[in-house]
């Protein structure tokens, strides 16, 4: 008897599973979604390259049966930029945590967005630093607790999607692990965008964020995701009172613009064709 579904067998390094994530950690759901999106799109796995930084989420590539690179904290996109420009044939996916992508890695995120380099970034946003044990991150809501915010976080949060948009990303979407199917679809669309794509996947960390902030167990945190989010299209039809305080999910940007590697290759081609 097989121990896992075909999807898992086809796309994961079976001998590396089960993964190290805690019981109920949402990260596994997003990781599965990425694999399913890749499979749905029929990409050649030899040409798929998955790159991450450091964090719980950043452990994902180690489990996935592609060309995989686990780099330094926050720098995945900079490594990915090198890989992609050096070999534009590769389908490059970056997996990152909210801390990894937007705290220490914030600069690489906005510059990759500015360049519109053809990389798909999936941010596993659990609103906390999981790997180091529950410090607040740039997405920990104001007032909530973290080990370094013992009296309630005084910081404001990033709206990752607005940040990515402001920096120039050509595909931007947000989904949650509760809305796993939609999230998978967002990832597919992101992968199909020729340019820089950001998908913010709202995850859950029952171990730290959940426990610190009394959000209940994993299942309760999932239900909470259902209750506190609204689809963009649905929200558009509601009066403001009904959308207030809700996290909007859905696609925010999906546009076509010159892609960095293609632009660069126009220069190279000019010379190599001359020869």
């Amino acid at each position, binding site marked *: 008897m097989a121990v896992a579904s075909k999807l898992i067998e086809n796309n994961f390094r079976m001998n590396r599973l089960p993964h*190290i994530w*805690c019981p109920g950690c949402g990260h596994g759901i997003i990781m599965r979604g990425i694999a399913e999106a890749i499979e749905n799109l029929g990409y050649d796995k030899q040409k798929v390259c998955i790159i991450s930084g450091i964090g719980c989420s950043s452990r994902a590539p180690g489990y996935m049966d592609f060309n995989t690179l686990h780099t330094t904290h926050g720098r995945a996109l900079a490594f990915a930029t090198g890989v992609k420009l050096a070999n534009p044939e590769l389908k490059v996916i970056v997996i990152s945590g909210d801390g990894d992508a937007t705290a220490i890695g914030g600069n690489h995120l906005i510059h990759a967005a500015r360049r519109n380099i053809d990389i798909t970034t999936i941010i596993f946003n659990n609103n906390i630093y999981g790997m180091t044990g529950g410090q607040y991150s740039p997405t920990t809501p104001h007032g909530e607790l973290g080990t370094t915010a013992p009296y309630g976080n005084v910081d404001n949060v990033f709206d990752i999607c607005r940040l990515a948009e402001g920096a120039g990303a050509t595909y931007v979407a947000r989904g949650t692990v509760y809305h796993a199917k939609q999230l998978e679809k967002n990832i597919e669309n992101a992968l199909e965008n020729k340019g820089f794509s950001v998908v913010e996947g709202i995850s859950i960390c029952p*171990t730290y964020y959940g426990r610190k902030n009394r959000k209940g167990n994993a299942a309760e945190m999932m239900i909470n995701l259902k209750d506190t989010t609204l689809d963009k299209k649905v929200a558009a039809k509601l009066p403001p009172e009904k959308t207030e305080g809700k996290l909007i999910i859905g696609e925010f940007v999906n546009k076509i613009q010159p892609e960095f590697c293609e632009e660069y290759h126009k220069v190279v081609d000019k010379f190599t064709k001359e020869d």
Partner: protein
Amino acid sequence: MANRTEIRLTGSGGQGLILAGIILAEAALLDDLNAIQSQSYGPEARGGASKAEVIISDEEIFYPKIQNSDVLLCLTRESYCKYIPDLKDDGILIIDSDVDFDNIETSYKIIQIPVIETATHEVGKSMVANIVALGVIQQATTVVTKESLEQAVLKRVPPGTQELNRLALQEGYKLVSNHT
């Protein structure tokens, strides 16, 4: 030679073994002994398997890690397998009744008792299994006094749970007394 006891508390994350280790060490200080508590992590700081170490001695403790333990508490099979090789030949293995151990010739003493079940059913909170375990260790080793242990426990547990924890300690003591 000095009187030195090395105690290893093992199980899985969330069982409160680090806190138990701290309490045990603090109890030793109350007894005017020296104590060092340390723990080791997996590849990262987050959850997973858990191990707390306590060394108690009447002289200065230099090396803070356990080389061979005098006492080994195991609350999971995984931790039993990992740490049993380092138990001294004349050591004590305290192992939860739910955990299978290998039936081999051993020279160490085995105390198999229902730590978790006692916490859940006798005390009423699985959370206090770590305190039950402390009672067991005290009774089995007398490495610290009951007075100091109780004082140390009460100092560390959340307000309002004192009675519960005192009861947990008592149940721990009893478990050993009843153990044949």
